[in-house]
Protein backbone atom coordinates (compact mmCIF):
# COMPACT_ATOMS: atom_id res chain seq x y z
CA UNK A 1 0.00 0.00 0.00
CA UNK A 2 2.84 2.39 0.79
CA UNK A 3 4.23 1.98 -2.68
CA UNK A 4 0.83 2.69 -4.12
CA UNK A 5 0.59 5.86 -2.08
CA UNK A 6 3.87 7.04 -3.38
CA UNK A 7 2.82 6.33 -6.94
CA UNK A 8 -0.43 8.16 -6.33
CA UNK A 9 1.39 11.18 -4.91
CA UNK A 10 3.76 11.21 -7.84
CA UNK A 11 0.92 10.91 -10.29
CA UNK A 12 -0.93 13.68 -8.52
CA UNK A 13 2.16 15.90 -8.68
CA UNK A 14 2.64 15.19 -12.35
CA UNK A 15 -1.02 15.79 -13.07
CA UNK A 16 -0.86 19.00 -11.05
CA UNK A 17 2.17 20.13 -12.98
CA UNK A 18 0.46 19.48 -16.27
CA UNK A 19 -2.70 21.21 -15.13
CA UNK A 20 -0.83 24.26 -13.90
CA UNK A 21 1.11 24.41 -17.11
CA UNK A 22 -2.03 24.26 -19.13
CA UNK A 23 -3.69 26.91 -17.01
CA UNK A 24 -0.59 29.11 -16.69
CA UNK A 25 -1.07 32.76 -17.49
CA UNK A 26 1.49 33.17 -20.22
CA UNK A 27 1.53 36.43 -22.00
CA UNK A 28 -0.55 35.20 -24.83
CA UNK A 29 -1.88 37.78 -27.16
CA UNK A 30 -5.46 36.84 -26.91
CA UNK A 31 -6.42 39.70 -29.16
CA UNK A 32 -8.97 39.54 -31.91
CA UNK A 33 -8.15 39.24 -35.57
CA UNK A 34 -6.28 42.24 -36.80
CA UNK A 35 -8.91 42.82 -39.44
CA UNK A 36 -11.75 42.89 -36.95
CA UNK A 37 -12.46 46.25 -35.54
CA UNK A 38 -14.58 47.71 -32.89
CA UNK A 39 -17.63 47.06 -35.06
CA UNK A 40 -20.31 49.68 -35.47
CA UNK A 41 -19.32 52.57 -37.70
CA UNK A 42 -16.75 52.39 -40.47
CA UNK A 43 -14.33 55.27 -40.87
CA UNK A 44 -12.22 55.36 -44.01
CA UNK A 45 -8.68 56.74 -44.02
CA UNK A 46 -7.81 57.76 -47.54
CA UNK A 47 -4.31 57.39 -48.95
CA UNK A 48 -2.97 59.29 -51.92
CA UNK A 49 0.50 58.36 -53.16
CA UNK A 50 2.25 57.19 -56.31
CA UNK A 51 1.41 53.48 -56.31
CA UNK A 52 2.67 52.93 -59.83
CA UNK A 53 5.51 54.43 -61.84
CA UNK A 54 9.02 55.58 -60.90
CA UNK A 55 8.18 56.65 -57.35
CA UNK A 56 6.04 53.66 -56.44
CA UNK A 57 8.64 52.27 -54.01
CA UNK A 58 8.02 55.25 -51.73
CA UNK A 59 4.27 55.33 -52.41
CA UNK A 60 3.68 51.66 -51.62
CA UNK A 61 5.65 52.07 -48.39
CA UNK A 62 3.24 54.89 -47.46
CA UNK A 63 0.15 52.83 -48.32
CA UNK A 64 1.30 49.75 -46.40
CA UNK A 65 2.24 51.75 -43.33
CA UNK A 66 -1.19 53.41 -43.19
CA UNK A 67 -2.76 49.98 -43.58
CA UNK A 68 -0.69 48.73 -40.64
CA UNK A 69 -1.87 51.65 -38.48
CA UNK A 70 -5.53 50.96 -39.33
CA UNK A 71 -5.15 47.25 -38.62
CA UNK A 72 -3.44 47.99 -35.31
CA UNK A 73 -6.20 50.39 -34.26
CA UNK A 74 -8.85 47.81 -35.18
CA UNK A 75 -7.05 45.00 -33.39
CA UNK A 76 -6.66 47.07 -30.24
CA UNK A 77 -10.18 48.48 -30.58
CA UNK A 78 -8.50 51.82 -30.11
CA UNK A 79 -11.66 53.74 -30.89
CA UNK A 80 -14.67 52.00 -29.38
CA UNK A 81 -17.40 51.40 -31.95
CA UNK A 82 -15.24 52.40 -34.94
CA UNK A 83 -13.64 50.18 -37.56
CA UNK A 84 -11.02 51.81 -39.74
CA UNK A 85 -10.65 50.97 -43.38
CA UNK A 86 -8.13 52.25 -45.89
CA UNK A 87 -8.88 53.47 -49.39
CA UNK A 88 -5.68 54.02 -51.36
CA UNK A 89 -5.58 55.95 -54.63
CA UNK A 90 -2.70 56.17 -57.08
CA UNK A 91 -1.64 59.71 -58.04
CA UNK A 92 1.26 58.50 -60.25
CA UNK A 93 3.26 61.46 -58.94
CA UNK A 94 1.08 63.77 -61.06
CA UNK A 95 -0.52 66.90 -59.60
CA UNK A 96 -3.59 66.65 -61.87
CA UNK A 97 -4.24 63.03 -60.88
CA UNK A 98 -3.77 63.92 -57.23
CA UNK A 99 -6.42 66.62 -57.54
CA UNK A 100 -8.89 64.15 -59.08
CA UNK A 101 -8.15 61.73 -56.25
CA UNK A 102 -8.81 64.48 -53.71
CA UNK A 103 -12.23 65.08 -55.27
CA UNK A 104 -12.94 61.34 -55.20
CA UNK A 105 -11.99 61.03 -51.54
CA UNK A 106 -14.07 64.07 -50.59
CA UNK A 107 -17.09 62.45 -52.29
CA UNK A 108 -16.86 59.40 -50.02
CA UNK A 109 -18.63 60.51 -46.84
CA UNK A 110 -16.93 57.77 -44.81
CA UNK A 111 -13.51 59.32 -45.41
CA UNK A 112 -12.59 61.38 -42.34
CA UNK A 113 -8.89 61.88 -43.07
CA UNK A 114 -6.34 61.41 -45.81
CA UNK A 115 -2.67 60.47 -45.56
CA UNK A 116 -0.54 61.81 -48.39
CA UNK A 117 0.67 62.74 -50.83
CA UNK A 118 4.37 62.08 -51.40
CA UNK A 119 5.15 64.97 -53.72
CA UNK A 120 4.86 68.60 -52.68
CA UNK A 121 3.60 69.53 -56.14
CA UNK A 122 0.77 67.01 -55.78
CA UNK A 123 0.06 68.25 -52.26
CA UNK A 124 -0.26 71.78 -53.57
CA UNK A 125 -2.95 70.66 -56.03
CA UNK A 126 -4.98 68.85 -53.37
CA UNK A 127 -4.95 71.31 -50.48
CA UNK A 128 -7.81 73.54 -51.61
CA UNK A 129 -10.09 70.60 -52.46
CA UNK A 130 -9.63 69.10 -49.01
CA UNK A 131 -9.86 72.41 -47.19
CA UNK A 132 -13.13 73.35 -48.87
CA UNK A 133 -14.60 70.01 -47.73
CA UNK A 134 -13.05 70.43 -44.25
CA UNK A 135 -11.33 67.09 -44.74
CA UNK A 136 -8.07 66.70 -42.87
CA UNK A 137 -4.93 65.86 -44.85
CA UNK A 138 -1.70 64.73 -43.22
CA UNK A 139 1.31 64.38 -45.45
CA UNK A 140 4.15 62.16 -44.31
CA UNK A 141 6.50 63.42 -47.00
CA UNK A 142 5.74 66.95 -48.29
CA UNK A 143 8.71 69.12 -47.36
CA UNK A 144 8.09 72.36 -49.26
CA UNK A 145 7.64 75.09 -46.60
CA UNK A 146 5.04 77.03 -48.62
CA UNK A 147 2.43 74.30 -48.16
CA UNK A 148 2.02 75.12 -44.50
CA UNK A 149 3.63 78.54 -44.11
CA UNK A 150 2.50 80.28 -47.30
CA UNK A 151 4.45 81.32 -50.37
CA UNK A 152 6.14 84.18 -48.51
CA UNK A 153 7.31 81.89 -45.70
CA UNK A 154 10.78 83.41 -45.67
CA UNK A 155 9.49 86.86 -44.76
CA UNK A 156 6.00 86.38 -43.36
CA UNK A 157 4.60 83.02 -42.39
CA UNK A 158 0.86 82.63 -42.98
CA UNK A 159 -0.92 79.29 -42.84
CA UNK A 160 -2.90 78.91 -46.07
CA UNK A 161 -5.08 75.89 -45.18
CA UNK A 162 -6.40 74.88 -41.79
CA UNK A 163 -6.96 71.27 -42.83
CA UNK A 164 -3.36 70.63 -43.96
CA UNK A 165 -0.87 68.96 -41.58
CA UNK A 166 2.39 67.11 -42.04
CA UNK A 167 4.65 64.87 -40.03
CA UNK A 168 7.74 65.49 -42.20
CA UNK A 169 10.25 68.24 -41.48
CA UNK A 170 10.26 71.06 -44.03
CA UNK A 171 12.96 72.03 -46.50
CA UNK A 172 13.33 75.30 -44.59
CA UNK A 173 15.39 73.14 -42.26
CA UNK A 174 16.44 70.29 -44.54
CA UNK A 175 18.19 72.49 -47.13
CA UNK A 176 20.25 74.48 -44.59
CA UNK A 177 21.00 71.29 -42.64
CA UNK A 178 22.49 69.75 -45.78
CA UNK A 179 24.43 72.95 -46.57
CA UNK A 180 25.92 73.05 -43.09
CA UNK A 181 27.01 69.42 -43.35
CA UNK A 182 28.46 69.78 -46.84
CA UNK A 183 30.36 72.99 -46.03
CA UNK A 184 31.49 72.41 -42.45
CA UNK A 185 31.83 68.64 -42.11
CA UNK A 186 32.48 67.41 -45.64
CA UNK A 187 34.58 70.57 -46.28
CA UNK A 188 33.18 71.08 -49.77
CA UNK A 189 33.34 74.71 -50.88
CA UNK A 190 32.33 74.69 -54.56
CA UNK A 191 28.93 73.30 -55.45
CA UNK A 192 27.11 72.69 -58.71
CA UNK A 193 23.35 72.87 -58.04
CA UNK A 194 20.87 70.92 -60.18
CA UNK A 195 17.11 70.59 -59.77
CA UNK A 196 14.16 69.03 -61.56
CA UNK A 197 12.07 72.25 -61.68
CA UNK A 198 9.38 70.67 -59.52
CA UNK A 199 7.97 72.22 -56.34
CA UNK A 200 9.95 69.89 -54.08
CA UNK A 201 13.20 69.77 -56.00
CA UNK A 202 13.49 73.44 -56.87
CA UNK A 203 12.44 74.48 -53.35
CA UNK A 204 14.98 72.24 -51.67
CA UNK A 205 17.77 73.32 -54.01
CA UNK A 206 16.94 76.95 -53.21
CA UNK A 207 17.09 76.56 -49.42
CA UNK A 208 20.36 74.61 -49.75
CA UNK A 209 21.92 77.21 -52.03
CA UNK A 210 20.99 80.14 -49.84
CA UNK A 211 22.57 78.62 -46.74
CA UNK A 212 25.65 77.36 -48.61
CA UNK A 213 26.34 80.87 -49.86
CA UNK A 214 25.80 82.40 -46.42
CA UNK A 215 28.42 80.06 -45.04
CA UNK A 216 30.92 81.29 -47.62
CA UNK A 217 30.52 78.50 -50.19
CA UNK A 218 30.62 79.16 -53.91
CA UNK A 219 28.00 78.07 -56.43
CA UNK A 220 30.04 77.28 -59.57
CA UNK A 221 27.08 76.33 -61.74
CA UNK A 222 23.35 75.65 -61.83
CA UNK A 223 21.24 73.51 -64.16
CA UNK A 224 17.70 72.18 -64.42
CA UNK A 225 16.97 68.74 -65.77
CA UNK A 226 13.93 67.31 -67.44
CA UNK A 227 12.51 64.64 -65.11
CA UNK A 228 11.16 62.73 -68.11
CA UNK A 229 14.69 62.18 -69.44
CA UNK A 230 17.30 59.67 -68.38
CA UNK A 231 20.14 61.14 -70.43
CA UNK A 232 21.96 63.74 -68.39
CA UNK A 233 25.30 63.59 -70.20
CA UNK A 234 25.23 67.27 -71.21
CA UNK A 235 24.70 68.37 -67.60
CA UNK A 236 27.35 65.90 -66.42
CA UNK A 237 29.89 67.45 -68.77
CA UNK A 238 29.03 70.93 -67.45
CA UNK A 239 29.60 69.71 -63.91
CA UNK A 240 32.98 68.30 -64.89
CA UNK A 241 34.04 71.53 -66.57
CA UNK A 242 32.84 73.76 -63.73
CA UNK A 243 35.43 72.41 -61.29
CA UNK A 244 32.87 71.72 -58.57
CA UNK A 245 33.86 69.58 -55.62
CA UNK A 246 30.25 68.55 -54.88
CA UNK A 247 26.88 68.40 -56.67
CA UNK A 248 23.64 69.22 -54.93
CA UNK A 249 20.54 67.77 -56.56
CA UNK A 250 17.01 68.87 -55.69
CA UNK A 251 14.77 66.08 -56.91
CA UNK A 252 14.02 62.41 -56.61
CA UNK A 253 15.87 59.12 -56.99
CA UNK A 254 14.61 58.02 -60.44
CA UNK A 255 16.63 60.89 -61.93
CA UNK A 256 19.26 61.24 -59.19
CA UNK A 257 20.55 57.67 -59.66
CA UNK A 258 21.35 57.94 -63.38
CA UNK A 259 22.55 61.54 -62.88
CA UNK A 260 25.11 60.45 -60.28
CA UNK A 261 26.31 57.65 -62.54
CA UNK A 262 26.66 59.90 -65.58
CA UNK A 263 28.47 62.64 -63.64
CA UNK A 264 31.10 60.13 -62.52
CA UNK A 265 31.31 58.70 -66.06
CA UNK A 266 31.99 62.20 -67.34
CA UNK A 267 35.08 62.28 -65.12
CA UNK A 268 33.86 64.29 -62.14
CA UNK A 269 34.56 61.96 -59.23
CA UNK A 270 32.64 64.08 -56.75
CA UNK A 271 29.76 63.19 -54.45
CA UNK A 272 26.16 63.94 -55.31
CA UNK A 273 24.12 65.19 -52.36
CA UNK A 274 20.32 65.25 -52.25
CA UNK A 275 17.39 65.34 -49.88
CA UNK A 276 14.86 62.79 -48.68
CA UNK A 277 13.68 62.34 -52.29
CA UNK A 278 16.83 60.37 -53.13
CA UNK A 279 17.00 58.47 -49.83
CA UNK A 280 15.80 55.18 -51.26
CA UNK A 281 17.34 51.79 -51.92
CA UNK A 282 16.36 52.35 -55.56
CA UNK A 283 18.82 55.26 -55.79
CA UNK A 284 21.65 52.82 -55.06
CA UNK A 285 20.33 50.36 -57.65
CA UNK A 286 20.17 53.10 -60.28
CA UNK A 287 23.52 54.75 -59.55
CA UNK A 288 25.40 51.46 -59.20
CA UNK A 289 28.93 51.52 -57.84
CA UNK A 290 29.20 55.21 -58.80
CA UNK A 291 26.81 56.03 -55.97
CA UNK A 292 29.31 55.09 -53.28
CA UNK A 293 30.08 58.19 -51.23
CA UNK A 294 26.92 60.03 -52.32
CA UNK A 295 24.95 61.66 -49.52
CA UNK A 296 21.32 62.24 -48.65
CA UNK A 297 19.57 64.05 -45.87
CA UNK A 298 16.31 62.62 -44.71
CA UNK A 299 13.66 63.58 -42.23
CA UNK A 300 13.77 61.97 -38.80
CA UNK A 301 16.27 60.16 -36.64
CA UNK A 302 17.72 56.83 -37.76
CA UNK A 303 15.39 53.92 -37.03
CA UNK A 304 17.92 52.18 -34.78
CA UNK A 305 17.82 55.13 -32.37
CA UNK A 306 14.07 54.96 -31.80
CA UNK A 307 12.68 52.02 -29.82
CA UNK A 308 9.20 52.85 -31.09
CA UNK A 309 10.49 52.64 -34.65
CA UNK A 310 11.94 49.20 -33.95
CA UNK A 311 8.49 47.98 -32.93
CA UNK A 312 7.06 49.43 -36.13
CA UNK A 313 9.73 47.70 -38.20
CA UNK A 314 8.98 44.35 -36.51
CA UNK A 315 5.21 44.74 -36.93
CA UNK A 316 5.62 45.76 -40.56
CA UNK A 317 7.70 42.66 -41.21
CA UNK A 318 5.23 40.41 -39.41
CA UNK A 319 2.36 41.86 -41.42
CA UNK A 320 4.03 40.41 -44.52
CA UNK A 321 3.93 43.40 -46.86
CA UNK A 322 5.78 42.72 -50.07
CA UNK A 323 7.28 46.20 -50.39
CA UNK A 324 9.67 47.93 -47.97
CA UNK A 325 8.34 50.77 -45.82
CA UNK A 326 11.04 53.00 -47.29
CA UNK A 327 11.86 56.56 -46.17
CA UNK A 328 8.34 57.59 -45.12
CA UNK A 329 6.94 54.43 -43.51
CA UNK A 330 7.24 55.66 -39.94
CA UNK A 331 5.89 59.09 -40.87
CA UNK A 332 2.97 57.51 -42.71
CA UNK A 333 2.10 55.33 -39.74
CA UNK A 334 2.24 58.40 -37.49
CA UNK A 335 0.13 60.42 -39.94
CA UNK A 336 -2.55 57.72 -39.94
CA UNK A 337 -2.36 57.36 -36.18
CA UNK A 338 -2.81 61.13 -35.79
CA UNK A 339 -6.07 60.81 -37.76
CA UNK A 340 -7.10 57.86 -35.59
CA UNK A 341 -6.38 59.87 -32.43
CA UNK A 342 -8.37 62.82 -33.75
CA UNK A 343 -11.32 60.54 -34.61
CA UNK A 344 -11.10 59.03 -31.12
CA UNK A 345 -11.30 62.48 -29.53
CA UNK A 346 -14.27 63.46 -31.68
CA UNK A 347 -16.13 60.23 -30.90
CA UNK A 348 -15.44 60.42 -27.18
CA UNK A 349 -16.60 64.02 -27.04
CA UNK A 350 -19.87 63.00 -28.69
CA UNK A 351 -21.00 60.20 -26.38
CA UNK A 352 -19.25 57.48 -28.37
CA UNK A 353 -20.76 58.37 -31.74
CA UNK A 354 -19.57 60.28 -34.77
CA UNK A 355 -21.20 63.72 -34.95
CA UNK A 356 -22.82 64.97 -38.15
CA UNK A 357 -20.00 67.46 -38.75
CA UNK A 358 -17.32 64.84 -38.03
CA UNK A 359 -14.90 66.08 -40.70
CA UNK A 360 -14.74 69.62 -39.32
CA UNK A 361 -14.44 68.29 -35.80
CA UNK A 362 -11.55 66.02 -36.84
CA UNK A 363 -9.72 69.02 -38.31
CA UNK A 364 -10.10 70.85 -34.99
CA UNK A 365 -9.05 67.81 -32.97
CA UNK A 366 -5.99 67.27 -35.13
CA UNK A 367 -4.52 70.57 -34.01
CA UNK A 368 -4.29 69.27 -30.43
CA UNK A 369 -3.26 65.69 -31.15
CA UNK A 370 -0.23 64.56 -29.15
CA UNK A 371 1.13 61.05 -28.79
CA UNK A 372 4.37 59.05 -28.78
CA UNK A 373 4.61 57.76 -32.30
CA UNK A 374 7.04 55.77 -34.39
CA UNK A 375 9.14 58.83 -35.11
CA UNK A 376 9.00 60.34 -31.65
CA UNK A 377 6.52 62.75 -30.13
CA UNK A 378 3.84 63.61 -32.68
CA UNK A 379 2.09 66.97 -32.45
CA UNK A 380 1.60 69.97 -34.70
CA UNK A 381 2.49 73.65 -34.44
CA UNK A 382 0.35 76.63 -35.41
CA UNK A 383 1.11 76.02 -39.11
CA UNK A 384 0.24 72.32 -39.03
CA UNK A 385 3.93 71.39 -39.20
CA UNK A 386 5.41 68.64 -37.05
CA UNK A 387 6.88 69.92 -33.81
CA UNK A 388 9.43 67.09 -33.88
CA UNK A 389 12.12 68.22 -36.29
CA UNK A 390 14.96 65.81 -36.68
CA UNK A 391 17.14 65.18 -39.67
CA UNK A 392 19.86 62.72 -40.54
CA UNK A 393 22.68 62.67 -43.08
CA UNK A 394 23.18 59.30 -44.75
CA UNK A 395 25.89 58.15 -47.16
CA UNK A 396 26.13 55.23 -49.54
CA UNK A 397 28.65 52.68 -48.35
CA UNK A 398 28.96 49.04 -49.40
CA UNK A 399 25.75 49.24 -51.39
CA UNK A 400 23.55 50.59 -48.60
CA UNK A 401 22.66 53.84 -46.90
CA UNK A 402 24.51 54.33 -43.61
CA UNK A 403 23.99 56.96 -40.94
CA UNK A 404 26.56 59.76 -40.86
CA UNK A 405 25.17 62.48 -38.60
CA UNK A 406 21.88 63.46 -37.01
CA UNK A 407 20.57 66.81 -35.94
CA UNK A 408 17.60 68.20 -34.04
CA UNK A 409 16.02 71.57 -34.68
CA UNK A 410 15.20 73.11 -31.33
CA UNK A 411 14.48 76.69 -32.34
Amino acid sequence: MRQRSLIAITAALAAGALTLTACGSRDDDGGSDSGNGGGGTTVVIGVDAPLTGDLSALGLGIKNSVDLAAKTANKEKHVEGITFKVEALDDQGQASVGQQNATKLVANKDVLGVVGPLNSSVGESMQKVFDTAKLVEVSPANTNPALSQGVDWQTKKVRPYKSYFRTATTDAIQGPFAAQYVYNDAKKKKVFVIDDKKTYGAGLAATFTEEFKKLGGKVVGTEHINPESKDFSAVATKVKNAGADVVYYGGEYPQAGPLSKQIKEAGAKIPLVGGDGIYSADFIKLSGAAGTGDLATSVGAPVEELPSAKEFVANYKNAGYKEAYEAYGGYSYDSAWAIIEAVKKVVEDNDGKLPDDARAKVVDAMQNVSFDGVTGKVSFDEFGDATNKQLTVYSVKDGAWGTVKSGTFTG
Partner: protein
Amino acid sequence: MSGIGPVEPGEDTRVREAPPPRPRGRLARAFARHRRAVLVCGAALLALAGGGYLYASRPQPSPPPPPPYPSQAIDLVYGAPATGSPEPAAGAFTFVVLLSVRSGPPVTVTRLTQPYDGLSVTTSPAAPFQTNSHSARKIIVTLRVTECEKAPRNPGLPFLDVTLRNARAIEAHSFILGTRYARDLSKALEAACGRDSR
Protein backbone atom coordinates in the same frame (compact mmCIF):
# COMPACT_ATOMS: atom_id res chain seq x y z
CA MET B 1 -29.35 -19.05 -8.99
CA SER B 2 -27.65 -19.86 -12.14
CA GLY B 3 -27.23 -23.54 -11.43
CA ILE B 4 -23.58 -23.32 -12.12
CA GLY B 5 -21.51 -24.19 -9.12
CA PRO B 6 -17.83 -24.31 -8.61
CA VAL B 7 -16.15 -26.90 -10.79
CA GLU B 8 -14.92 -29.84 -8.76
CA PRO B 9 -11.42 -30.97 -9.45
CA GLY B 10 -11.53 -34.04 -11.64
CA GLU B 11 -8.94 -35.94 -13.56
CA ASP B 12 -6.26 -33.68 -14.68
CA THR B 13 -8.08 -30.82 -13.19
CA ARG B 14 -6.12 -30.57 -9.97
CA VAL B 15 -4.67 -27.32 -9.25
CA ARG B 16 -1.07 -27.44 -10.19
CA GLU B 17 1.40 -26.07 -7.74
CA ALA B 18 2.90 -22.86 -8.72
CA PRO B 19 6.35 -23.29 -10.18
CA PRO B 20 9.15 -22.19 -7.89
CA PRO B 21 10.05 -18.57 -8.45
CA ARG B 22 12.68 -18.07 -11.08
CA PRO B 23 15.93 -16.74 -9.72
CA ARG B 24 15.79 -12.90 -10.09
CA GLY B 25 18.54 -10.70 -11.51
CA ARG B 26 20.83 -8.50 -9.45
CA LEU B 27 18.94 -5.37 -10.25
CA ALA B 28 15.63 -6.91 -9.33
CA ARG B 29 17.06 -8.21 -6.12
CA ALA B 30 18.51 -4.80 -5.32
CA PHE B 31 15.16 -3.18 -6.14
CA ALA B 32 13.40 -5.64 -3.85
CA ARG B 33 15.82 -4.83 -1.07
CA HIS B 34 15.58 -1.03 -1.53
CA ARG B 35 12.11 -0.72 -2.97
CA ARG B 36 11.00 1.99 -0.61
CA ALA B 37 14.11 4.10 -1.09
CA VAL B 38 13.93 3.78 -4.88
CA LEU B 39 10.30 4.77 -5.02
CA VAL B 40 10.85 7.73 -2.71
CA CYS B 41 13.80 8.90 -4.79
CA GLY B 42 11.83 8.42 -8.03
CA ALA B 43 8.91 10.40 -6.71
CA ALA B 44 11.24 13.11 -5.48
CA LEU B 45 12.90 13.28 -8.88
CA LEU B 46 9.52 13.49 -10.61
CA ALA B 47 8.38 16.20 -8.24
CA LEU B 48 11.64 18.07 -8.81
CA ALA B 49 11.30 17.76 -12.57
CA GLY B 50 7.70 18.95 -12.41
CA GLY B 51 8.66 21.87 -10.21
CA GLY B 52 11.61 22.69 -12.43
CA TYR B 53 9.39 22.64 -15.50
CA LEU B 54 6.85 24.87 -13.81
CA TYR B 55 9.58 27.27 -12.75
CA ALA B 56 11.18 27.35 -16.15
CA SER B 57 7.86 27.89 -17.91
CA ARG B 58 6.49 30.50 -15.51
CA PRO B 59 5.26 33.73 -17.08
CA GLN B 60 8.34 35.90 -17.49
CA PRO B 61 8.03 39.61 -16.83
CA SER B 62 9.07 41.35 -20.07
CA PRO B 63 12.57 42.79 -19.74
CA PRO B 64 12.64 46.53 -19.17
CA PRO B 65 13.15 48.50 -22.37
CA PRO B 66 16.72 49.65 -22.94
CA PRO B 67 17.38 53.27 -22.02
CA PRO B 68 16.92 55.77 -24.84
CA TYR B 69 19.82 56.99 -26.95
CA PRO B 70 21.13 60.16 -25.34
CA SER B 71 20.12 62.38 -28.26
CA GLN B 72 16.55 61.12 -27.89
CA ALA B 73 16.50 61.78 -24.16
CA ILE B 74 17.57 65.42 -24.00
CA ASP B 75 16.52 68.87 -25.11
CA LEU B 76 19.08 71.54 -25.83
CA VAL B 77 17.55 74.95 -26.47
CA TYR B 78 18.90 78.42 -26.96
CA GLY B 79 18.26 80.80 -24.08
CA ALA B 80 19.62 84.28 -24.73
CA PRO B 81 22.87 86.25 -24.92
CA ALA B 82 24.50 86.21 -21.48
CA THR B 83 24.32 89.47 -19.59
CA GLY B 84 26.14 90.83 -16.54
CA SER B 85 29.69 90.37 -15.43
CA PRO B 86 32.18 89.44 -16.52
CA GLU B 87 31.80 91.61 -19.61
CA PRO B 88 32.41 89.47 -22.70
CA ALA B 89 35.75 90.12 -24.36
CA ALA B 90 35.87 91.91 -27.69
CA GLY B 91 35.16 89.50 -30.53
CA ALA B 92 33.35 87.10 -28.21
CA PHE B 93 29.71 86.11 -28.07
CA THR B 94 28.50 84.60 -24.82
CA PHE B 95 25.10 82.99 -24.57
CA VAL B 96 23.07 80.56 -22.51
CA VAL B 97 21.75 77.20 -23.64
CA LEU B 98 19.48 75.07 -21.51
CA LEU B 99 20.02 71.34 -21.39
CA SER B 100 17.34 69.13 -19.90
CA VAL B 101 17.24 65.35 -19.60
CA ARG B 102 13.67 64.17 -20.23
CA SER B 103 14.07 60.47 -19.57
CA GLY B 104 16.46 57.59 -19.06
CA PRO B 105 19.70 57.54 -17.13
CA PRO B 106 21.95 60.60 -16.53
CA VAL B 107 23.49 62.10 -19.65
CA THR B 108 27.06 63.38 -19.83
CA VAL B 109 28.12 66.05 -22.30
CA THR B 110 31.63 64.94 -23.17
CA ARG B 111 32.25 67.59 -25.83
CA LEU B 112 30.55 70.72 -27.10
CA THR B 113 31.87 72.33 -30.27
CA GLN B 114 30.73 74.49 -33.13
CA PRO B 115 31.46 73.56 -36.72
CA TYR B 116 32.71 76.83 -38.22
CA ASP B 117 36.27 77.68 -39.18
CA GLY B 118 37.40 80.97 -37.68
CA LEU B 119 35.55 80.49 -34.40
CA SER B 120 36.53 78.79 -31.14
CA VAL B 121 34.27 77.74 -28.31
CA THR B 122 34.49 77.37 -24.53
CA THR B 123 31.76 76.40 -22.09
CA SER B 124 30.98 76.78 -18.44
CA PRO B 125 30.85 74.22 -16.97
CA ALA B 126 33.65 72.79 -19.07
CA ALA B 127 32.92 69.38 -20.58
CA PRO B 128 32.57 66.68 -19.41
CA PHE B 129 29.61 67.35 -17.16
CA GLN B 130 26.66 65.19 -16.22
CA THR B 131 22.97 66.03 -15.91
CA ASN B 132 20.56 63.76 -14.10
CA SER B 133 17.27 62.50 -15.44
CA HIS B 134 14.34 64.92 -15.09
CA SER B 135 16.64 67.81 -14.34
CA ALA B 136 18.05 70.71 -16.31
CA ARG B 137 21.12 72.87 -16.31
CA LYS B 138 22.30 76.11 -17.81
CA ILE B 139 25.39 76.04 -19.98
CA ILE B 140 27.23 79.28 -20.72
CA VAL B 141 28.77 79.10 -24.18
CA THR B 142 31.36 81.58 -25.41
CA LEU B 143 32.28 81.76 -29.08
CA ARG B 144 35.41 83.71 -29.97
CA VAL B 145 36.31 84.89 -33.44
CA THR B 146 39.80 83.65 -34.18
CA GLU B 147 39.87 84.55 -37.90
CA CYS B 148 37.31 86.87 -39.41
CA GLU B 149 38.32 85.71 -42.90
CA LYS B 150 37.12 82.22 -42.15
CA ALA B 151 34.16 82.97 -39.89
CA PRO B 152 30.69 82.55 -41.48
CA ARG B 153 28.83 85.67 -42.62
CA ASN B 154 25.33 85.09 -41.31
CA PRO B 155 24.50 81.42 -41.04
CA GLY B 156 20.79 80.76 -41.34
CA LEU B 157 20.53 77.73 -39.10
CA PRO B 158 23.81 77.38 -37.18
CA PHE B 159 24.55 74.25 -35.16
CA LEU B 160 26.17 73.32 -31.94
CA ASP B 161 27.78 69.88 -32.16
CA VAL B 162 27.50 67.96 -28.91
CA THR B 163 28.90 64.57 -27.98
CA LEU B 164 26.59 62.86 -25.51
CA ARG B 165 27.03 59.77 -23.42
CA ASN B 166 24.64 57.73 -21.30
CA ALA B 167 24.30 54.08 -20.30
CA ARG B 168 23.05 53.25 -23.80
CA ALA B 169 25.52 54.91 -26.17
CA ILE B 170 27.96 57.65 -27.00
CA GLU B 171 26.83 59.74 -29.92
CA ALA B 172 27.61 62.98 -31.67
CA HIS B 173 24.51 65.04 -32.41
CA SER B 174 23.94 68.46 -33.94
CA PHE B 175 21.53 70.88 -32.33
CA ILE B 176 20.12 73.50 -34.66
CA LEU B 177 19.21 76.23 -32.22
CA GLY B 178 16.85 78.17 -34.48
CA THR B 179 16.43 81.60 -35.93
CA ARG B 180 16.87 83.59 -32.70
CA TYR B 181 20.29 82.05 -32.14
CA ALA B 182 21.17 82.61 -35.80
CA ARG B 183 20.21 86.27 -35.51
CA ASP B 184 22.16 86.85 -32.30
CA LEU B 185 25.20 85.02 -33.66
CA SER B 186 25.15 87.01 -36.89
CA LYS B 187 24.90 90.26 -34.93
CA ALA B 188 27.87 89.25 -32.79
CA LEU B 189 29.91 88.24 -35.85
CA GLU B 190 29.10 91.52 -37.53
CA ALA B 191 30.21 93.42 -34.43
CA ALA B 192 33.42 91.43 -34.27
CA CYS B 193 34.38 91.44 -37.92
CA GLY B 194 32.28 94.06 -39.68
CA ARG B 195 29.69 93.37 -42.31
CA ASP B 196 32.03 92.99 -45.29
CA SER B 197 35.19 91.81 -43.63
CA ARG B 198 35.43 88.58 -45.59
